[in-house]
């Protein structure tokens, strides 16, 4: 069973969380982004077999959306952290 560490609540069973998919920056100027940029953002994914930065949501807990670095082949979780401009790029 996978254990995930919520930045608020500490270590919890993964069934308390919902995966929010790989982290991807939004088009930086949304009003100027064309269809191509939006479709890239909305549909297309790196979907790596390896280390992935991704969103998680503590659904049955504190409700926090946070980030994790997970190896998608082994499911090993290297770190979990709060979103913040300095941590994400």
């Amino acid at each position, binding site marked *: 069973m996978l254990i995930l560490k919520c930045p608020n609540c500490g270590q919890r069973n*993964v069934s308390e969380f919902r995966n929010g998919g790989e982290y991807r920056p939004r088009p930086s100027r949304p009003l100027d982004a064309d269809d191509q940029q939006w479709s*890239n953002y909305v549909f*297309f*994914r790196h*979907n*790596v*077999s390896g280390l992935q930065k991704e969103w998680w949501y503590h659904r049955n807990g504190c409700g926090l959306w946070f980030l994790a670095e997970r190896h998608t082949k082994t499911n090993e979780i290297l770190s979990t952290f709060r979103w913040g401009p300095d941590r994400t790029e």
Partner: protein
Amino acid sequence: MSRMWQVHELRDRYDAVIIGGGAHGLCCAYYLASEHGINNVAVLEKRYIGSGGSGRNTAIVRSNYLTPAGVRFYDASLKLYERMAVELDINVMLSQRGHITLAHNDISLRTMRRRAEVNRLQGVESRLILPDEIKQLCPVLDVSDRPRYPIIGALYHPPGGIIRHDAVVWGYAHQADAHGVHIHQMTEVTGIEVSGAKVTGVKTNRGQIKTETVLNATAGWCSTISAMAGLRLPVITSPLQAAVTEPLKPFLDVVVVSGSLHVYVSQSDRGELVMGASVDPFPSYSSRGSLDFAESLASHIIELMPGLQRVRLMRQWAGIVDMTPDYSPIMGFTPVEGFFVDVGWGTYGFKASPIAGKMLAECIATKRTPDLITPFSLSRFNEFDLMGEAGAASVGH
């Protein structure tokens, strides 16, 4: 007696290289060689053929989808299955025993009514039935109002059923081989050479190959192969699990699916109950089973068929599947010339392998997208013209 397929040295040049030795890749190779005279073809498989989804699926075949283009496409596949045993000279054990999808609420019933109409307009046998007819078709189901989610109706699709998946893989491999195709097992693609937005070759753990045509038929791994050609896909890879019970005397001669309870079940010719559910709760390339899955599967099956309480689970396994946002595949050209895709097969792609392989072979040989598969192009995502097949493909595979 000769072997079903031969072992070859890797040539340094092929007219087409197919990556992925599942039913899709092998079938495409077979049609390229048998119908289009393109025989200098290699199928590269990193492990053994059928080691991906093609050897792990629960072998359900059906054509009662929701979109007209989807119904036409899967129906063409079912027609190919109907004559496959003769064509490939192997017993694929196609059993069109009937397929029923249960409704436990009004919303499902409404989707099913729509599916039945769409199906019939495309000439596919499919209709809504009520609990007394469900009970006749499948006496073991609890159709009373006792369960938490009582059964209120079902979509009945008589031509749906199951098939022996391994035989399909071996049949295509055998016939492709007989037409000169090289099947290379334990051959992993490690890179794709692209020059000026055109494919020029493939790198493998056994050496380099020159080619102008590459087909990505790697299902759950398709994003890793596309990345080698510099492309992203609208695909997310997730595990999908299944399980079988100990063998029982024959009592279940239809395939039963319940979308609301997230389970489906059929009985194999050996008597085992073959059961599955929807994809795992989070994406991963790991094919490990989980206790969560076995527990929820068992409790839901017992809700449907209380008589199975004391039956033992025998095996459980997982495969990885390539999910798309609209529960529909992606077939045909990509922005890289010579690089074709046959991916996005999610939880439902085994049944499509005959027609997908045939269409991709035609697409590669003629450099034109056949009409049957134009709705499934990669470009639909850039045009925001998605398929919307979730109502017929999210639980029932």
